[in-house]
Structures are given as structure tokens and as C-alpha cells.
């Protein structure tokens, strides 16, 4: 989703990770994660096998995977979890991967960009990298469903009262506002946007209304699919007063990274934030 629809999120994430001295490289030859909402719905065995190929490619390079998307995170993390815990399934999937001379041995760690920022880098180092603080900005954070849930598998933060993303946005000096049904879904997932856009949009409209009521100046998310739903949804609903910003774009602005890399103007609702 990010590389092909919101490449500004990809380039912003690369720039931010570099600014924070995180070593990373491109995992070559991978495919779509594949998208959990649709492919897991179509055929779970295919979902497992395609995802396992991606995990195995990382294993060959002895690398962990960083994802900048809740959907990729859902597929890769949950497939790794399933295969780690189900020997029989692992054998079945490896029998498929044998067709392409690959084997997965359950050693790949999958991490979400936001989790790395919070746990491995830490809010303090991030705050120290901020050159242009956003003291007056009121942010409505949107975690998205698959960063934290299912929590028995992900075990990252409290799924009902999380704080990671709130703390991460406050590192730029901004305030994270509370709003009604803050942890509710954007509406896009599970193939609903593709199959019944009007239903997805009703859920988005709920979110936007609650966010507006709380007086937020922007939404900050950590998933390009939620991002698409908020950004395109704002256009489709005719409610374009609150732009959606990916966490990497917010940090890009606050760190003072070259704006041309952040893709601020290649969204349906361009990003303009007042420092105040």
C-alpha cells in the first residue's frame, strides 16, 4: 500500500529511521505481505504460504523485518506466530515452499515501525531529534486495528487503552487529544472498502465526526491503509478540514527533513500543519 499509493510514507519512514541511526536495507524479491483482510479471507493456506516466503527471504539474509503498515504487520507477524506454534502447519507450508527451494525455520522477527520507535529507540531520543516542535498542535491518534490486536498474539500494548502512539506524537511537543471511540476501526479493513465502500465510509464518518468534536487539527496514523481510508474518505465524504498524517511524516516535519521527501502534497487532502 505505502510504496504504490502513498510513497511519501515510505520515503518519510526511510528518512526518519536514518535520522535515528537505525540500520536497514531493502528486503529484495518479496511480494505483497499478502494483505490479511482479503487474502486470509480468500484462502488461508495461500495467505500462510505467500507470507512464509517473505519471512523465509528475510531468514536467508539473517534479518528482522520492519513494516510500516498494520496490514503487512498483521500478515507477517501472525503467520510467523502461527508457524512458530503449529508444527504440522509449518510442515505443510514448507512442503509448498519446497517447490521454490525455500524453507522457513521460524527465526524471523517481525516488528512494526511504531513499536521500534517506542521500544527500541525511545521517546527521549526522538524528542532530542526534534528541531521544529509542534507545541500547539492537537493530534487525534489512530492506532488502527492490527498493530495491537489480537493482543494475545501481538502483546505490544493494551488494546483498549493503549498509550504508545499517544506518547510517540507527544514527543514532537504536541498534545494527543482524547476523543469518543478513539480505538475504533477506520472502516477499511477485512475487504470492506473494496466490497462495500458505503459501509466503510459510514465507519470513517463516525471517526471523523468524533475527531472534529475533540478539536483536533490532524489525525496521526501508522498504517497506509487506514491512511487511504481517512484521506480518500475525507474527499468522498466532503469533509476535508482535517488532514491525516503518518507518524513518519510528522517526524519528518519535526526533525526538519527535506519536505520534498515527505509526500505532503500527494494526498487527496494535503498536509499543512501550523507550528503555532
Amino acid at each position: 500500500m505505502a510504496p504504490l499509493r502513498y510513497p511519501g510514507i515510505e520515503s518519510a519512514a526511510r528518512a526518519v529511521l536514518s535520522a535515528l541511526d537505525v540500520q536497514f536495507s531493502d528486503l529484495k524479491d518479496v511480494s505483497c505481505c499478502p494483505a490479511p483482510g482479503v487474502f486470509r479471507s480468500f484462502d488461508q493456506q495461500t495467505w500462510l504460504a505467500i507470507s512464509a516466503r517473505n519471512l523465509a527471504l528475510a531468514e536467508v539474509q539473517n534479518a528482522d523485518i520492519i513494516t510500516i503498515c498494520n496490514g503487512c504487520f498483521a500478515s507477517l507477524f501472525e503467520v510467523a506466530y502461527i508457524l512458530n506454534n503449529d508444527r504440522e502447519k509449518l510442515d505443510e507450508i514448507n512442503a509448498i515452499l519446497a517447490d521454490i527451494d525455500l524453507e522457513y525455520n521460524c527465526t524471523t522477527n517481525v516488528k512494526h515501525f511504531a513499536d521500534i520507535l517506542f521500544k527500541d529507540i525511545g521517546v527521549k531520543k526522538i524528542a532530542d531529534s526534534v528541531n521544529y516542535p509542534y507545541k500547539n498542535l492537537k493530534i487525534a491518534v489512530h492506532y488502527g486495528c492490527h498493530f495491537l490486536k489480537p493482543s494475545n498474539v501481538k502483546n505490544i500494548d493494551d488494546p483498549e487503552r493503549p498509550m504508545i502512539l499517544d506518547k510517540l506524537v507527544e514527543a514532537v511537543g504536541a498534545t494527543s487529544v482524547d476523543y469518543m471511540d478513539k480505538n475504533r476501526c477506520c472502516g477499511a479493513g477485512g475487504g470492506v472498502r473494496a466490497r462495500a465502500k458505503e459501509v466503510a465510509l459510514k465507519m470513517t464518518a463516525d471517526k471523523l465526526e468524533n475527531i472534529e468534536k475533540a478539536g483536533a487539527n490532524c489525525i496521526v496514523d501508522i498504517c497506509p491503509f487506514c491512511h487511504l481510508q481517512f484521506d480518500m474518505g475525507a474527499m468522498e465524504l466532503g469533509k476535508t478540514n482535517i488532514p491525516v498524517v503518518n507518524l513518519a511524516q510528522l517526524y519528518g516535519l519535526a526533525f526538519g527533513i527535506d519536505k520534498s521527501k515527505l509526500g505532503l502534497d500527494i494526498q487527496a487532502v494535503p498536509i499543512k500543519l501550523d507550528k503555532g
Partner: protein
Amino acid sequence: MELRIDMTDEVEVVEKKAKLVNPEFVEEVIKAGAVSVNLCWQCGTCTASCPSGLHTAFRVRKLIRRVQLGFMDEVLPADDMWMCTTCYTCHERCPRDVKIPEIIFTLRNMAVKMGYMAETHKKAATLLVKTGHTIPLDDKAKALRKKVGLIETPLTTLSNSEALEEVQKILRHTGFDKIVGA
């Protein structure tokens, strides 16, 4: 006005409905991996938590009950279960640890095998078979990537035909190309 109730009609309707119950359905669902379905005691916490149910007729508690009772023909062809965004709110809150999204994935897999698949979903599936991705790398996407300083074609199956061939081999092995008619 004379009020008459024709009992023979009513009996027929009930008999017809009863024939639609497939007692093996729940076993099939369990065998396919959704082992928690019979743990549900119908409290309704899931429906009360469901963002989709706020805007549609989809009632996830009823979906689970229909599976338990074997109403396969009411469940699999219907739009209902496709209204779930897989947000996992119900999964988090279910007091009986019913893995609801897992059940929904299993049911959707069954429906797809029977040929129930939305055209828009077929399109996404076909793109995966053809490119290894679900979004096309068209001129617009290339231009946007260039604009933000990225290489035009990501170093994925999009830039290596051998890697794409590997993905396609997997998809043939699992029969995915046939399932989705790609």
C-alpha cells in the same frame, strides 16, 4: 372478516426450513480450524462491540449461532459476514475466548471455494497472481515515487520476474489461481 390460519402451510414452511439445517456444518467449520465456535454462549458482547453492526444488518452473535445450528445456506452465500472489517474488538472482549475473526476467515474461505466472491475482490486476487502485489505499479505510481525521491520500481516481485515466478508457483500449488479464477 373471517380470520383463518392455514396450518398446513405453516407446517410446510417449517419442514422446508428444517431441511436446510445441515448438522455437519459446524463440524466442518471446526475441522477447518475454527475450533472455538461452540464455546459461544450467545451473550452478545461481540455484536455490542461491532463497528460494522452499527451501520449494517450484520449481527456477529447471530452469525455464530447460525453456524452452531447448521444454517449453512443462510451463512455462506450471504453478504453479512463480508461486512466484518476484522477489527478484532469482539475477539478482545468475548468472555468465552471465541476467536471470532478466525471463524469469519474460515467461513469466508468456504464461501470463496463455493464461488461466492465479490468482483472487486477477484480483481485484487488477480493482481496478486499477475504481479505479486495487489496495487498496480502504473505511470502515476511511478511518477509519485520519483517525486519523493524513491526508485520508480520497488525491489520486489515488480522488478524481478524470477521472484514473481516463485510467487506464481506457490499460487498454483495452493490452487489459488483456480479458486479465484485468475
